[in-house]
C-alpha cells in the first residue's frame, strides 16, 4: 500500500482485492461500473412487534462473492439471512436473486440453500442419505443421485464415511456433511450461518481456507453470517458490518480494518485506541487535531470533511504504534507515557501504557528476534509514535 491512499475507494488499486480470487478477472465486480448484482436487497425492513430487527437495509452482492455479514448478537444479521432463505417474510422491501423477486416464493422453491449453525443434520439418516435429501425431493434418478453424492463426499473429503450416522462423526466431519448437503443442489446462492462457530480454533483455521477453496471451485455465491471478526476477515471478499439492524459499513476486509468509517466499526473489528480531539487545521492533504487525551497535536496526511473545531476521534491501531525509550525526531504523533503492564504472547507483546494525560493506550510490538531488540518492563518511561498515514479520523 502506498501512503498516498485515500478513503476514496473508486481510485483504489486493484491488487488489494486479488487476495481471494486469483487472476480470473482483475477488477472485482463490485468495483465495476454498471455491473449487475446477483443478489439485490432493496430497503428491507423486518419488525417483530415493536422491535425492528432489520432496518431499511439495501445491499448488492455480486456473483462469486463471499460476502460476510458481521455483527454482534441482536444486530439483525441472522434475521437478514433467514429472510434470504425464506424463513422470515420481510415487513417491507424487496429481495431479488438473479433478477427474480423472491416475494411469495417459499423456502422449498428458492434457488438458495442454507448451512445451519447447528448443522441440522437429520439424525435418523446416514451421511449419504443426508446429502442426498435435496436431490431426492427433486426426483433425480437414483444412479445420478448416487454419483453426485459420492462427488460431494469426495469434495469434502469424507468419501469413506457415507454409511455412518451423524452421531458417529466428529464436529469437523459434521460441518463438512452439512456443507456437502447444502451444496448438492447446486444452489445459486449459499447461505452460511456461523459456519465455523462450533469448531475448535485449530480446526476453524484449516476449515476457513477449505471453505474458500470450495467456493472458488464451484463458483457459488456465498453469504456468511458471523460474529467472529477473524472469521470474516479470512473468508470474505467483502464484509458488511451490522449494528442495530443497519449495515454500518460495507467494504473489503482490508479497508474495513484500515479505514473504518465510524467508532463502532473501529472498535468492533480488532482493537483500537481512540483519542478525542478538536480539528484545528483542515486542508485537503493535512488535518491537525488538538487532543487533550493524547496530550498534544495529532497530524494526519489526508483531508476529511468536517466543520472547523468539530470534535472528532482519531483511531490508531495498537500495532501501528512504535515504542521507544528515546524521543523520536518527529514532533507530532508522538506521545509520552509509562508502561503499566505488559503481556508476552509469543509472536507479539501487548503493552498497556499510561500517557501523561492519564489515558491508557494499548500497544503491540512484534517479537522479530528471540533475544535482541529493545526490552521494556514495568514503569519504563517510553515514547509512543506513529506515522502520519497510519491513523484515521472518525467523525461518527
Amino acid at each position, binding site marked *: 500500500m502506498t501512503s498516498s491512499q485515500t478513503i476514496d475507494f473508486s481510485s483504489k488499486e486493484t491488487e488489494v482485492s486479488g487476495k481471494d480470487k486469483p487472476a480470473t478477472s482483475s477488477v472485482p465486480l463490485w468495483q465495476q461500473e454498471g455491473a449487475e448484482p446477483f443478489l439485490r436487497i432493496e430497503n428491507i425492513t423486518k419488525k417483530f412487534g415493536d422491535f425492528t430487527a432489520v432496518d431499511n437495509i439495501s445491499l448488492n452482492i455480486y456473483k462469486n462473492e463471499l460476502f460476510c455479514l458481521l455483527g454482534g448478537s441482536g444486530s439483525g444479521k441472522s434475521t437478514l439471512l433467514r429472510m434470504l*432463505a425464506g*424463513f422470515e417474510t420481510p415487513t417491507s422491501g424487496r429481495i431479488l436473486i438473479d433478477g427474480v423477486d423472491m416475494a411469495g416464493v*417459499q*423456502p*422449498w422453491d428458492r434457488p*438458495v*440453500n*442454507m448451512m*445451519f*449453525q*447447528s448443522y*441440522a*443434520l*437429520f*439424525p*435418523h439418516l446416514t451421511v449419504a442419505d443426508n446429502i442426498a*435429501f*435435496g436431490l431426492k*425431493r*427433486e426426483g433425480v434418478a437414483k444412479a445420478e443421485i448416487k454419483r453426485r453424492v459420492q462427488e460431494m463426499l469426495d469434495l469434502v473429503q469424507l468419501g469413506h464415511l457415507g454409511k455412518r*450416522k*451423524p*452421531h458417529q462423526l466428529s464436529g469437523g466431519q459434521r460441518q463438512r456433511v452439512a456443507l456437502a*448437503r*447444502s451444496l448438492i*443442489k447446486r444452489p445459486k446462492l449459499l447461505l452460511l450461518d456461523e459456519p465455523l462457530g462450533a469448531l475448535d480454533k485449530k480446526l476453524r483455521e484449516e476449515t476457513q481456507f477449505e471453505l474458500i477453496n470450495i467456493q472458488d471451485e464451484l463458483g457459488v455465491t456465498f453469504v456468511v453470517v458471523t460474529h467472529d471478526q477473524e472469521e470474516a476477515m479470512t473468508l470474505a471478499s467483502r464484509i458488511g458490518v451490522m449494528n442495530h439492524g443497519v449495515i454500518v459499513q460495507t467494504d473489503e476486509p482490508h479497508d474495513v480494518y484500515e479505514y473504518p468509517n465510524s467508532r463502532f466499526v473501529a472498535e468492533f473489528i480488532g482493537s483500537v485506541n481512540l483519542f478525542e480531539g478538536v480539528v484545528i487545521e483542515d486542508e485537503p492533504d493535512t488535518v491537525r487535531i488538538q487532543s487533550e487525551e493524547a496530550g498534544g497535536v495529532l497530524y494526519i496526511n489526508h483531508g476529511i470533511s468536517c466543520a472547523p473545531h468539530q470534535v472528532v476521534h482519531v483511531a490508531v491501531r495498537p500495532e501501528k504504534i512504535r515504542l521507544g525509550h528515546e524521543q523520536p525526531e518527529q514532533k507530532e504523533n508522538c506521545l509520552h507515557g509509562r508502561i503499566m503492564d505488559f503481556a508476552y504472547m509469543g509472536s507479539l507483546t501487548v503493552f498497556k501504557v499510561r500517557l501523561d494525560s492519564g489515558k491508557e493506550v494499548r500497544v503491540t510490538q512484534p517479537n522479530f528476534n528471540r533475544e535482541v531488540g529493545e526490552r521494556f518492563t514495568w514503569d519504563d518511561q517510553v515514547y509512543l509514535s506513529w506515522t502520519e498515514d497510519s491513523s484515521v479520523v472518525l467523525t461518527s
Partner: protein
Amino acid sequence: MKRRSLFLNTTAGLGFLFLYAPIIALIIYSFNKSKLVTVWGGWSLKWYVELFNNDQIIDAALLSVKIAFISATLAVVLGTMAGFVLSRFGPFRGKMVLSGWITAPLVMPEVITGLSLLLLFVALEGMFGWPAGRGTGTIIIAHTTFCMAYVAVIVQARLSSMDETLEEAAMDLGAKPSSLFFLVTLPLIAPAIISGWLLSFTLSLDDLVIASFVSGPGNSTLPMVIFSKVRLGVTPEVNALATLMIAIVAIGVIAAMYQMRRQNRMMSS
C-alpha cells in the same frame, strides 16, 4: 467407578428387597407343586398347564390383549396429535388449560375416571342409542382416553427437545410441508411413539378399576377375572397367571425404556 460405601449398598439392597420380595415370592410359588398356596411342595409346572386349560382365563386374556392393542393404537394417534399441538402451536390463549386438560387423566383417581365415563356412556345411550350397552367398545374408548394422556406427554417432550432447524433444513432442501412430517418429524419422534404405544399397551392390560366400571356382562378383562377369582380364595393358578403377566409387562416396559434411551442417544448427538 466411584467406590460405594457399605451404607449405600445396604440401603439399596433393602430398598429393592422391599419392592421385589413379594413379586419374587409370587413367581416362586407359581412353580409350587402343592395345592395349598402357602405350603411349598417342590417344583412343578402343573399350574401353568391348568392355566392354559382354563377357557375362562384364556378368553379373558385374549380379550385383554385385543383391547390393549386397539386402545394403544388409537391412543398413539390421538396422543401424537395432542402432543404436536402442545409443542408446536407456540403460545396461544388457553395453552395452559389445554395442556392441563390433556395431562389431567394422569393424576385423576381411576375411580372418578371410570365413574364419569360410565355416566357418559349411559347418558349417551339414553340420548342417541349409542353405545348400545357396554362391553368391549366402551372399554376401548375408556382406555384410549387415559392412555392418550401418556402418549401426549411423551410425544410433546420429544418434540420440544427436537431441534426445529431440522424441519427448516428439510424445507430449505426442497421438502414441502406436506411431506416434511413424514420425512423428518415422524421418523424423529418414532421412538417416542413406539414407547408411548408400549406403555399404553401395558397400562390397558393392567387396568382393573376403569374396566370394571365400563364393561358389560360377558366382557370381563383378565384383571377382572383374576380379581373375582382371588375373592374366592387365591389359587396357585392365579400365581402362574400373575407371573406371566409380570413377564409381559416387564418386557413392555423394558422395550419402552430401550426405545427412549436409543432415541436420547441419537438426539443428543
